[in-house]
């Protein structure tokens, strides 16, 4: 039976930084001191106003293809994950297909999920290869969540950053690569992370663009991202342990069998507690959130590449990727890192 896995990966971050000091000037020192000690985020990368998520994904993909000399004609499908697409239509993956000069006999589709987009895309890439539809799949992520935030909303501005990634999924030696996936949804929490206006349920209007101040002094309109932080926190500390347990049972492994746990980098406080609750020792974890913020769906591939560059990800290692967030949605996978992996692409930073 065919086995599939991650052969190569890269990420790309915009160069503009929104620093702790910038936010102290905007929101006041005491409030930001709490954010720094709580969320553990010091700096975020912010895309310029004319940069889209697809531009970040494109930059990551070009670097991946060029660094490893991957022939463009070998790509049979491109999956672009984003919640900040170029247009309502066409599918942004079709635009990226053209920009990346991929062949015509290449599938292209978008996945509209947030924090869980990457692991979902991996499961679909895995399925496309297992079904014989594709041999190599390019999984791209890219979002500019900072463009959805109201600059005076202290509940979200300190948390989010922009970023993109590219991964090549292909065949690996038998018994290596993806061992199993765990995917789940709780739509009853869809209102906890939401941009209410701008779709077809609530088109943009004068009313939707009206700014309102909440009880904590945060300003936003219905066209901005809203997050109920406490509800998302509750979701994370209850669903993540259950998801991991289900995933491990599904693949007949225990926490002790996994070499490295790479979780969605929502914020350090949440992750520290979840790791503690799951009794996962610090040496089996990796963080990359303090200097870049929560990059939404790109956070898992970005932390994965960073761990790979730091030689925590290596052939033969058993790696667990866990994501959770907007939807509410969750997705996890366990894979044995393949012997034929090409490697991560060094960063430009």
């Amino acid at each position, binding site marked *: 039976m065919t086995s599939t896995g991650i052969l190569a990966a890269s990420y790309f971050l915009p160069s503009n930084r929104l620093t702790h000091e910038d936010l102290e000037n905007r929101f006041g020192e005491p409030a930001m001191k709490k954010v720094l000690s*709580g969320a553990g985020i010091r700096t975020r990368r912010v895309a310029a106003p004319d940069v889209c998520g697809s531009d970040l994904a494109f930059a990551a993909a070009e670097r991946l293809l060029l660094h490893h000399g991957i022939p463009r004609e070998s790509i049979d499908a491109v999956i672009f994950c984003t919640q900040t697409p170029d247009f309502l239509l066409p599918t942004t993956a079709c635009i990226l297909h053209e920009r990346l000069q991929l062949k015509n006999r290449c599938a292209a589709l978008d996945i509209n999920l947030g924090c869980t987009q990457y692991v979902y895309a991996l499961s679909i890439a895995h399925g496309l290869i297992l079904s014989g539809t594709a041999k190599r799949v390019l999984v791209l992520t890219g979002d500019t969540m900072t463009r959805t935030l109201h600059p005076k909303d202290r509940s979200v501005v300190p948390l989010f950053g922009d970023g993109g990634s590219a991964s090549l999924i292909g065949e690996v030696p038998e018994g290596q690569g993806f061992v199993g996936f765990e995917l789940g949804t709780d739509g009853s929490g869809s209102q906890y992370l939401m941009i209410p206006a701008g779709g077809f349920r609530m088109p943009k209007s004068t009313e939707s663009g009206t700014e309102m101040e909440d009880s*904590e002094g945060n300003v936003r309109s219905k066209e901005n991202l809203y997050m109920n932080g406490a509800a998302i926190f509750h979701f994370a*500390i209850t669903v993540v342990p259950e998801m991991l347990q289900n995933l491990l049972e599904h693949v007949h492994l225990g926490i002790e069998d996994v070499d490295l746990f790479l979780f969605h980098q929502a914020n350090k406080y949440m992750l520290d507690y979840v790791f503690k*609750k799951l009794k996962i020792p610090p040496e089996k974890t990796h963080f990359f959130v303090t200097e870049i913020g929560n990059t939404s769906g790109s956070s898992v591939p970005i932390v994965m590449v960073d761990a790979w560059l730091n030689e925590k990800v290596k052939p033969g290692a058993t790696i667990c990727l866990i994501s959770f967030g907007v939807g509410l949605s969750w997705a996890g996978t366990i894979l044995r890192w393949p012997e034929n992996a090409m490697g991560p692409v060094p960063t430009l930073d």
Partner: protein
Amino acid sequence: MTRTEFKEQFADVLGLPPNELNFDTVLGSLESWDSVSYLATMVLIDERLGIALRPDVLSTAKTVNDLIALVQVKLED
């Protein structure tokens, strides 16, 4: 954990000396009762008492006594 021990640990979450927090203290009157200490309280209750208290339930508590009533089932007295 007793009611008093819970109150002491809750005071610690708020960064207050234990004697500055009474059972009838109104949470909304405390400067340190903010979104960060709110999450820390959820962690305290989940970690020490094994109750994943939903935020819409937690927000019904107006005083320390109200908060204790929500977790009373896991306290010793």
